[in-house]
């Protein structure tokens, strides 16, 4: 199927869990004038995965790859939430009722609204469920 406008390319970077690794990633992005809109670090024993939404994902992938990092694209979606009590519940309820599993998520609170970034087991079904349930998805073009 053709690319859904709501599917956003997140970059994921394998990183050893030691001082300076995040700085190395961030410096590389700065050098390419790539802006980070949202990011999170998942940590396991001895290593971690840095996940980020950036304005130029292809360029970021290229640059980090050249520097020897293990980089991958991951499809995620972004849902606009009301920045008030119950905002997260709205979105989580829709996905739960649609039997869609959230693999991981992270959020940020912007000027206009709060945004929840989601990695789910079935992206297409999640998009359909959120639209049907009255939620607001953010188009990838808004980031990228």
């Amino acid at each position, binding site marked *: 199927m053709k690319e859904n406008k709501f599917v956003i390319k997140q970059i994921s970077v394998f990183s*050893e869990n030691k001082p300076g690794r995040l700085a190395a990633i961030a410096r590389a992005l700065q050098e390419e004038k790539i802006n980070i809109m949202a990011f999170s670090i998942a940590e396991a024993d*001895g290593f971690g995965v840095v996940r980020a939404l950036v304005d130029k994902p292809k360029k970021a992938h290229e640059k980090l790859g050249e520097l020897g990092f293990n980089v991958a694209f991951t499809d995620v979606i972004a849902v606009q939430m009301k920045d008030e009590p119950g905002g997260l519940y709205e979105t989580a309820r829709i996905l739960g009722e649609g039997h869609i599993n959230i693999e991981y998520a992270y959020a940020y609170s912007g000027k206009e609204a709060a945004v929840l970034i989601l990695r789910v087991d079935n992206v297409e079904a999640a998009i359909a469920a959120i639209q049907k349930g009255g939620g607001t998805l953010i188009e990838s073009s808004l980031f990228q």
Partner: protein
Amino acid sequence: MRAWDPRIEEMPKADLEAMQYRLLKTLVYRLYSFSPFYHRRMEENRVHPDDIRTLGDIRKLPFMFKRDLRDNYPDRLFVSSQEDLVRYHVSSGTTGKPTVVGYTERDLENWTASLARGLVSCGLGRGDVIQVSYGYGLFTGGLGLHYGAERIGATVLPTSVGNTERQIELMQDLKATAIACTPSYLLHMGEVAEKMGVSIKDDTLLKVGILGAEPWSEQMRQRIQEWLGIRAYDIYGTSELSGPMFCECTEQKGFHVWGDLAYVEILDPETLEPLPAGERGEMVITMLQKEALPMVRYRIGDISAIDDSVCGCGRTHPRVQRITGRVDDMLIIRGINVFPSQIEYALMSIPEVGQHFQIIVDRRGALDDMLVQVEVKREAFSDKITDLMSIRKKVEHKLKNILNVAVNVELVEPGSLPRFEGKAKRVIDRRKI
């Protein structure tokens, strides 16, 4: 060319053994007369040259060890006087104080002949361009292969080690058909070439690798052959034997130990009794014709097995299977013997991780703790932590199965583990005894 010296290489076994006996007899008389060290050692063991009446009587002779060379540093084991020497080499001393070896003109001649036979046996000859990427200088690798390759009429490209990008350019520009280096350096070259946008398989004429100076596995051979599109041959030697000395033939079933130059025994490391063909044990080598620095029943400390049958290539000389460990590289982890080569073997069967690794041994409380660092391959990288954890579990499980001891595995970034251009030093032992 079928063989460099068919008269010797295809000599009937009985004739070869008769020749070995004559050479051994001469060697023992010579040492008893001219080597104060070996004379004393024979007396301590109550052996006289007259006791050697068959080839099997070699077992009556006392052993020599690496420490004998160190204890007699620099040249007190030499039997030739300095004016008869035409060259020295000095070992890198990875396992202790450096050792000095010396050569007469005839020693160099035999060394060169041994390599000429080996290079021809793996299909090389006039018209080939052999890139020698072993170190030149005090190390025996570079100069040894250099003269062997020139002897068979090949063109030598003496690049030595280092400056890998330039090596790859020269390999392309001068159309090298063979390379002699350590297997880990060849892997490193392959990686550097890819970064330069060069595929050794598709963009060079390389067809043969003469790889040695460190232990490597059959899986590593398969990986090198598939990835780089070459035939990879094992070459064996140490400076005490002259240098790189014995090479595999196109059959790839172990390196031929030329019987006119050396006699090889495989012994049970505990009882020192000879083991039947095919069984793994400690390799003991006697150099039958060395003049300057004779080595008798030299216990190198390498573990291997012998195949005494006539080879498919027609050569009658025994083949020794690739070295699978060293008596002194052995790590003892919680009372269990562990060889780094076993870890290499285990990792080769796991496609998600690279071929480089590092072992860090430490002591946590009273227990030995072994950590193996491996690189996650780009293709295997997943955004999901659980996928990465399961790669780690898989490696831990595989290592535990092969080593019989629990091991911690740490996944590290690709390219972050040290690459070695000479001998790989893959073990960091932080235990304080």
